[in-house]
Structure formats: C-alpha cells, structure tokens
C-alpha cells in the first residue's frame, strides 16, 4: 500500500508539472487543437485522419509557414467522453487555440454552445451536427464537407443517373441503429416521394458485428440498390452479408466511412465493384500529397506509419487541414495577425472554389453556408484501390437545406 501511495504522489506530481508547463504562448504560432478519440469509438478513423492532419501542418511549417506564422497541433485523446473533451477544450482555449476538431459526435455536440460563446472555430468534418451547415445559427461551426444528408442525396442521384431515373426502383437503406444511421432517412423519404421510388429502412443493432437477420429480410425485399450506413467494424460485415445474399457489389453504395481496410476485410477480390461516397480523393497522385511525401515523409518528419499516407482517412485529414490553413491564410491577408477565432471564421467564409490543388471538390463557404456546397463523388473498389467513377457533384441541395433549416430553427428555439 505504501508503494501505491508513493505512486499516487508521483502521478499527482507529474500532473502538476503538466499544469504548470503548458501555460506559455508564442505569438507567431497558430494553434489548432486536434482533441480526438484515439481509444474508443472512432478508432477506425482517428489514427490515419490525425496523422494526415499533422503531416499537412508539418508540410506548411517546413515550407516556411504563412506570413511568418507557423502551425502547431495540440493533440489529446478524449476517449469519446464529453467530460474529457471539454477539459481538453478548455485547456486548449487557454493555450490560445483558434480551431478545434474533436472528430467525435458526442463531444462536438456538448461543445457547440461553448465554441459559440468563446468564438473559437470548430470544424466537424463528417461528424457532429448536420444542421451546423447553417452559418447564421452556428457562426463558429464548420461541417466543411458534405453532411450525411448531402451524401444520401449524392448517392441517390448516382442511382438516378445509372438507371435513367428512379421511378419504380427499390432502394434499401441498411443502417446501424443509432442517430447517425438514421440521419439520412428524412432526406431519402422526401426524395422517394418526389421521384416515385420505393424506399425502405433496415436497422441492425449496434455495434454491427452480427447482421445476418437484417440481411435475410433485405434479400426478400429484392432491392435494386442498397445503401449501407455504418462505420468501423460494422461496414465490412454489411458488405459481406450483402454479397452473400446475392446483391452485386456494384449495387451496394456506402456512406463515406468505407476505407481500404474494410475492403481488405471483405476480401479484395470479392469487394470489387463496391461503391462509396467520397468527399476527398484517395491516393498520392496529387500535388499536395507529392509534397508531403517529399518534404515530410522522406526526411522522416512524418507522425506515423508511412504506409498510411494516401489512404482514405489520411487524405480526409490532409484536406481538413488544407481548408483550415487556407482559411487562416485568407484571414491573415485580410486582417493581419495575430489570428483570432473571429478572424479565422471570416477567413473560412472568404474561401471560394478551393479544391486543395485537385484533391477535393471546389469548396465555397459563405456567411450562410458552412457546408461548402455538399459536393462529393462516387468511387469504386477495383480490387486494389478506390477509383473515382464520377466527377464531383452535389445534388438536391434544396431538400438538404430544408432539413438543415428545420433543425437549426430547433436549435435556435433552445432545443
């Protein structure tokens, strides 16, 4: 017991050290707080995503920064727990962070009212509240890429183009039984009414490791297309069950959470033909990625396994930081330093047709639109890699914005 007590004192001492050691601020660094979930629910994406973000910031710093400013990433694990996320947020705010990225829906949702009050930009790339696309209600929250509503619309549009119309088609929507899985349902229902196709939802229980009962039902529905809406370990299970139940991979359309690992778990050959929504291009054949390889990875400045460079989630991480750095650049150009949350927000709103040198669709933000247009494209697994099969496009933004405005109005009324 005595040893344990000493150990406890040691821990407290170490903690006290961290408390005193971190309260310094440098005026020529811009701090981005990447307070993410490395250990709980989002583990399937966080590692590669965060690596991409930090490698991009390293690239910018190696290239001399922006206007003499360099970037610093404050990285902490939140374990998907709101109380740890809020602590990390308050700490980062004290250290002068102007942007936070939680990559965790529960933490982001608990932090919304705080970032609005503290005037710090929060990016919610492919997570968080979809209605935060409404920039007038959520001035400091930037979903930045297509919301789940936009993704559903893009996928539906793809079916429409492939099949010459949606009239009379059957679309099965198989999702994990959680608010995230159910999010696109209203948009799809509205579309089904407008376009006259049949639409049915099938939920499988969380965490999605076993879905056979659901898919027996899906097979009997005889859908023309299946949209799968899950994340992590549930995704390969969905694809395997779909293929096993005689649904051709070409007719399976996935939400953005489908990566190389998932295709490998399904089996690289079996998965050939599988389609997914893509918000950011995959691979290393883009100028930014080539520069990262040259300036960051080859000299050994990378933050993780170099095999991850160019994977789906790595590139999403790179793109999220590319947009943020672009916003910082515009803000510094317009207002000069030092950068604050308010300036950075205006920087975001000044972004026009920015496509990260070809890596992503041209994004334009405005005071109203924080989603950036809701663009995406369809890519297909060709046995080795994800290969784009369409151009960047956005669809049915009118329906999407109806949803955004409905929920944002709810938020304004204190819901």
């Amino acid at each position, binding site marked *: 017991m005595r040893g344990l007590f000493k150990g406890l004192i040691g821990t407290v001492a*170490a903690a006290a050290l961290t408390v005193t*050691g971190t309260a310094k601020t440098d005026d020529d660094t811009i701090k981005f707080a990447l307070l993410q979930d490395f*250990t709980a629910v989002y583990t399937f994406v966080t590692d590669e995503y965060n690596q991409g973000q930090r490698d991009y910031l390293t690239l910018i710093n190696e290239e001399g920064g922006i206007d003499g400013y360099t970037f610093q990433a404050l990285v902490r694990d939140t*374990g998907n727990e709101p109380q740890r996320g809020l602590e990390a947020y308050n700490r980062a705010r004290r250290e002068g962070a102007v942007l936070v990225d939680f990559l965790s829906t529960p933490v982001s949702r608990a932090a919304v*009212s705080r970032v609005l009050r503290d005037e710090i930009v929060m990016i919610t790339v492919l997570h968080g509240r979809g209605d935060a696309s409404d920039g007038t209600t959520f001035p400091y929250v930037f979903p930045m890429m297509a919301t789940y509503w936009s993704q559903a619309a893009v996928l539906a549009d793809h079916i429409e183009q492939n099949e010459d119309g949606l009239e009379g088609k059957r679309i099965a929507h198989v999702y994990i039984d959680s*608010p995230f899985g159910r999010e696109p349902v209203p948009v799809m229902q509205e579309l089904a009414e407008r376009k006259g196709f049949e639409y049915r939802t099938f939920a499988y229980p969380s965490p999605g490791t076993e879905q056979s009962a659901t898919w027996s039902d899906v097979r009997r529905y005889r859908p023309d297309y299946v949209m799968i809406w899950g994340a992590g370990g549930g995704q390969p299970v969905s694809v395997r069950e779909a293929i096993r139940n005689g649904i051709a991979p070409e007719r399976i359309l996935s939400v953005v959470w489908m990566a190389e690992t998932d295709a490998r778990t399904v089996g690289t050959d079996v998965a050939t033909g599988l389609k997914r929504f893509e918000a950011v291009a995959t691979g290393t054949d883009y100028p930014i990625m080539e520069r990262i390889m040259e300036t960051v990875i080859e000299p050994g400045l990378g933050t993780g396994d170099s095999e991850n460079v160019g994977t789906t989630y790595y590139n999403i991480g790179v793109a999220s930081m590319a947009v943020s750095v672009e916003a910082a650049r515009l803000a510094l150009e317009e207002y000069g330093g030092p950068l604050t949350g308010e300036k950075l927000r205006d920087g975001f709103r000044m972004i026009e047709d920015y496509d990260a040198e070809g890596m992503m669709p041209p994004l334009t933000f405005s005071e109203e639109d924080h989603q950036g247009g809701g663009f995406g494209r369809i890519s297909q697994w060709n046995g080795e890699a994800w290969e784009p099969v369409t151009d960047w496009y956005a669809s049915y933004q009118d329906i999407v914005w109806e949803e955004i405005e409905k929920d944002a109005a709810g938020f304004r009324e*204190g819901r």
Partner: protein
Amino acid sequence: MFYRLSGVHHTRYETARQLWPIPADRWQVWILLALALGAPLYMADLYLTSYMLPWLVWSAAALSLTLLMGVAGQLHFGFAAVMAIGAYTSIHIARAGWPFEIALIGAGLTAAVIGCVFGAAALRVKGLYLVMATLAMQYLVDWVIINVPAISGGAQATLQTPDVTFLFVPMQGDTALYYGALLWAVIVTVLVLNIKRTSFGRALVAVRDKDYAASIIGVNSFKYKLLAFFTSSFLGGVSGAVLAFCYYQAVTPEQFGFNVSIQLVAMVLVGGLGSVIGAYLGAGFVLLAPIFLTNAMAYAAIQGWLTVSSNLLAHIPLMAYGALIIGFLLFEPLGLAKIYDNIRKYFLVWPFRHSGS
C-alpha cells in the same frame, strides 16, 4: 496534535451524536467548505469549469450510488441509465416552460420510480445476478432513449438545455453553474452522512450484511431494499439533471452509456464502498486520472522524454487507468477512503506510533 482528543468531553448527547464529534474533523470540514465556496475567487476558470465542477457533480452521483452499493449492499451496474432518466426528464420539463425547481424534483421522482423497477430485480436476486440484471436494464433504457425521438430530440439526438433560473438566480455563467453544482453536492453529502446514522441507514446496513438475518430481527428487507433503490435513484436522477444543466448544457444518449455506469461503479469501489469521503476521492480519481495521465503523456512527448507513436501514446493512459483500478483492488480493496483513514488514524495518535490501548 492536530486531532487533539484529550480535553474533548461530550457532556450532552447532542454533542456526542453530532456528525463530527472530534473538533479537528469539524474545522477541516469548515476549511474545505470555505475553500469550495471561495473557489471562483482564486481558481482559474479552466480548473473551475473542467475539474471542480464535474468533480462535484460526479461526486454527488457517486454518493447516490454508494448509498445503494455501499450502505445497502445492492449492486447496480446501470446507474448511468438512472442518471439519464433524470437528465432527460428535467430537460423536457424545463423546455415545456416549467420552473427549474420543479424540473429537478420531477427528474428525481421519475428516476426514482423507474429506479424502483430496477430494484424489483433486487427483491429476487443479489450479488452477481443483480449485476447482470441491472446491466440488462441499462441496455433497455439506452435503447428506448435512442429509439424514441420524442425523448432523444429528433434527428440530431441532442437537446440543448434551455436557460433557467434557480431560486431567482439565472443559471448562466461559470460561477452560477459552479455554485449550483456545489449546492447539490453539499445537500447530497449531508443527506447521506445523516442517512448512515438514522434507523433507516442502520436497517439498510442490516440488509446489506445479511438480508435473511435482518428479516429475522424484524427489518422488512423487501421494503428497505426498495427504499434504498428509491432514495438512491432519486438522488441519481437529480445528479443527472444537475450534470446536464450545470455541466454538459446539452444532452446526448452517449453521455449516459454503459461505460459511464462502469465508471460510476469504479468511483464507488476505488473510493471505498459506503464511504462518503471515498465517493469524493473515487470520483476525483476516476474522472481526473485519465485526464491527468493524458496531459502528462502529451507533456512528456512534447519534451521528448517519450518517443513512441501517437497511437501508443494515446493508449498508455488507458492501460495505466486499467492497471490502477486493478492495483487498487489488489492492494487496497477498501479504497482511497481507507488510505485517508490510515492517515487520519496516524495523526490521531501522533507523535506516537500507536495508541496505548
């Protein structure tokens, strides 16, 4: 020396029966209370809002659970669900335009009623089976919250807390929220301290130690088990509501998941079953240890003392946290409260090593 026992003579029953008969304990409590009351004056807002406030609310929740698990001996692995019921009830009542005071009482009552349903299992089984039954109910409550949009709040499944006033004080700003949490923690502490020395508390202890034996001496163990669930769930429900309004300011289903139930049990066990000070220490440990460990690791990495991959870096606190829980159970099963007690006993006879008797 600090605990001067000589010369302290209780000449009336009231003084011998008071909560802290030893003057040293009394002034320690007063100092702590003064420190807590003055915290907004001397504490930076980071520490006030990210450490003190959640610690107080979680301590209140751990106290509610320790009343059930430590005093009454009924194991509960679904206490986060009870808190969720309280949080959701209060937020819906407040949003319907009722006063916050009523929302809090409503939260407590709803949680207590549903908590008694959990308790129904306790009338039939105990020990491990009760653990499993409450765990199953946790899953059921989670499922209902997630699958009924009217409860969880529509497509976003997030409910923002409306602006409320408590006893004519608007609950806005760090200071007001902090005092709200502190008030609740003090109320629960005083209540639990007093329950432990009333006939109710003694009956609970009798049921805990052996329910058959208790019924032989005339304690209705059915009634007291249910009462224990009722009281504890009431307090837990209000704690959930206070957590939602004073700390999270938004409620999502994930905030009260199964892992939170485990954390609550860990708070009670690491603190020491049935101990009031243990609930505070345990809540502090379980809540703050991962945060301190994460920050310590990050600091070590920035200083270059620790060169490992960021993935491993993020997982070291998790390992250490698991190892600490194991370590406590192995080496000090009576928890942090026992460590406190050892220190206190040492000072009771200081400067001698042992008391004469």
